């Protein structure tokens, strides 16, 4: 199991160090704090908007999940505001890029 093999299936997984309990992002087999092997667990898929902008009619948002992981995702509905709570509705890999589709909670 790897982050990407799960992401291909549409699952957002989180790498967490079995020893120091740190979330490892970007996902890796080894902890970037202590080099211990990580365990994979299901991600919460909920977080908040840190910042956003808009290209054409599409909002792209910098979001934070579990107070640690930051990614840029596309807002599929609603108007974002900084600090708003969001959830990841859909994620995966498209044309060699990760994608995250989010909406307001």
């Amino acid at each position, binding site marked *: 199991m790897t982050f990407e093999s799960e992401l291909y299936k549409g699952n957002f997984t989180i790498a967490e160090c079995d020893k120091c309990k740190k979330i490892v992002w970007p996902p890796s087999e080894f902890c970037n704090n202590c080099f211990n092997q990580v365990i994979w667990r299901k991600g919460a898929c909920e977080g908040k908007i840190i910042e956003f*902008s808009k290209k054409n009619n599409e909002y792209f948002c910098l979001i934070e999940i579990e107070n640690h992981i930051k990614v*840029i*995702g596309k807002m599929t509905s609603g108007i974002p505001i900084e600090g708003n709570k969001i959830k990841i509705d859909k994620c995966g890999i498209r044309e060699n890029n990760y994608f995250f589709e989010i909406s307001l909670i």
Partner: protein
Amino acid sequence: MSKVGIASYGITKFSMEDSKIESVLLESTKKLFDDTPNLSRKDIDAVLVSTNNNSKYLSAILSEMSGIEPKIAHSIESLCNSGTNSIVSAYSYIASGLADVVLVSGAERYDSTGQILEWDNSRGEFKHPIFWASIFTKAYKREFSITDEQLALVSAKNHKQSQHNPYALSKKVYSLKEIINSKKLTDDLRLLDCSRPCTGGASILLASEDSCKKFTDNPIWITGIGQKTMSAGFTKNMAFSSMESTQYAALSALKMSKHSVMDVNVAEVHDAFAVCEPMALESIGFTDKGKGMDMIKELHTTNNFKINPRGGLIGAGHPLGATGIAQTIEITQQLQSNAEKRQVENAKIGLVHNMSAAATSSTVLVLER
């Protein structure tokens, strides 16, 4: 530690030409040799090439095409701050005694693959630099109540200044209205807020104190170096309205030079996008947080060329691997009083700020007469 100086330089016109990378490297190297009569090919101990181009073995290729057989030859890639990082490597070779004279040549093509960091999957589908620039711009505007009209001053100033730079890509000055009405890329970014990737080359010759005197009567000394890498991924930045790596690098460089930022008379800062200029000025310490645009407005209205005299990246163009070297050449010319219509009066101490990938890493140099 012995002093390391800048003995000579050569630069090409920045353009959208479809030139081979090897030709661009050779052109600025030839100009450097043409302007350095006492320089023999045998003097050069190391040839360092700064580029993000995918071609292989470019330092050996440039050496062969220039008739140089150096002891040391290799390329250096670090996205947009490849140029200053190569200069730091050259400095280190000389300071350690492994080399006495080093040629650093940077070049890029307009279609460089270095513009996009494919590895950074935390950007999702939004890997083009306009997306991190939009996030920076939005965060900066929100935190400090800055408007698009105010930010347009950066582009107006730098295009204006670049008209006195014979090597610049920009061919005209723009009004604030033209900048604000230029093509909207995102809600927070217009086309004229951006520097343009282009084709260009820049070469610089570094040497020990004794050797410098052989090539020039007017050497410029590198007295401060600061480098800092916070991460590779954009989303790992702790703040989106300031540049943390720049703060560290500037502090280190100024400490090494034993100067305060207030002693700096002229600087090139990395204005990849308009918002980067006030952020850089604040992070280096030229002004307080949120006050960068006040400083830029004053410089623009008084026609003071202190910041980005060659037009910065927005006015001069941004051939990634050549940019840091071109910035360093500009400050060298300023300190040698050779900057013609761009000359900042009585410039004695200069600073170069060069950064990569949304300021995830920065390099700062302090130069002196």
